[in-house]
């Protein structure tokens, strides 16, 4: 079965501004999207080598008090990035 891992669009700039907060900047449109610290953490793992489950596991390893439904939230977050063209999928055999 093919496994689709999310991968960040390399054209998008992750601009970490204050503490762990950041914006994603799309130079082609000039649009910017705000990211909270969890969003930044996830974005950095969108390297095509981590599936959503692996990302959530890493999140649980790194942070305390990760809620039960974090997996669903992470999935929705990645889907919303995909809809905006900020994330694609690399197919791995």
């Amino acid at each position, binding site marked *: 079965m093919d496994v689709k891992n999310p991968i960040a669009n390399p054209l998008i700039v*992750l601009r970490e501004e*204050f503490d762990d907060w950041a914006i994603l900047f799309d130079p082609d449109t000039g649009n910017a999207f705000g990211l909270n610290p969890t969003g930044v953490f996830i974005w950095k793992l969108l390297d095509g080598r981590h599936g959503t489950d692996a990302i959530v596991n890493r999140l649980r390893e790194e942070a305390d008090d990760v809620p039960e439904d974090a997996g669903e939230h992470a999935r929705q977050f990645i889907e919303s990035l995909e809809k905006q063209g900020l994330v694609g999928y690399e197919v791995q055999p």
Partner: protein
Amino acid sequence: MRLMRTPKKMDIDITNRCNLRCRYCYHFESSGDAGGDLPAAEWLRFFEELNRCAVTEVTLAGGEPFIREDLKEIIEGIVRNRMRFQILSNGTLIDDDMAVFLAATKRCNYVQVSIDGSMPESHDVMRGKGSFAKALQGLMTLRRHGVHAAVRVTIHRKNVHDLEGIARLLLEDIGILSFGTNSAGAMGLCRKNAEMVQLTTQERVTAMETLLRLTKKYNGRINAMAGPLAEAKGWLEMEQARLEGRESMPNRGHLTGCGCYRQHLAVRADGAITPCTMLSHIELGRINRDDLGEIWRDHDELRTLRERHLIPLSRFSFCEGCPYVNYCTGNCPGLSHTLVGEVNHPSPDACLRKFLADGGRLPDRALLG
């Protein structure tokens, strides 16, 4: 106040050369006018560092950016390094080929063209014969190819009575959305030609009234960060605060005149990194030699500038007894340095008390619209 990890934007003098010699050019004979141009390879290397620093936007100025034969190569470097850009230009060297190229990059926020008159007389008198026609042609070329063209009008003694005509030309005949205004400041060549160029107090009054009236007429399609229109709005606000006997106004009463070095840095054409194009005498380092992020976060000169806003205006003998002291920002530090030799001082150029003492009169508040 929290500081971003890296600058968001860079203002780059990409060249020290220009095909014109405008009588009020702030660049030539200022400390920004230093050394020769760097080869494109140096800029391309620097853009890679900007990419690593997640800088998102670059302003190319000069001199005249379009004089560089390798400008396309430089812009390709900006695009490759995930940034957008804008160009400040006199407009006279823009041709179809360049406009097509700019449009194709899809990264150009705008090209700002200087148009100072509604007719050749009021533009060419300061910028040189034939420059009005060429600037207009440049503006139209950009528009024809879908490049967003912004216009800046610099107000001086020879066009202050042509403002109505300029607004009609730009907003009605050509149909641009809006334009910006400024006035010839006391920097660079303008200092040398001050008599001919800089508005007298009475002309300043005329400019303020006319611009407020036109801004109202054209529903806010005229704007300004400095110069008579910005002063008129700012000073009316200060006067209102005084009349109401307000204790203070937010972010006023200290040297809060400009905080641009919290958002961006500048680079001179010779590669020196400076806090701002108006403060180009302060060298913070050099591109491709010093680490931009370290300069941004740790340079003593920047720290000092960023603490400027803590200095109360009441500390200066210049402001002693001024009824506006709690409502004033002390204005631009670059102009202050040029005029009184100190960065940490209020600038006399945009001082309301001085303007009134010189016989100036504030416009009617009703003009604010």
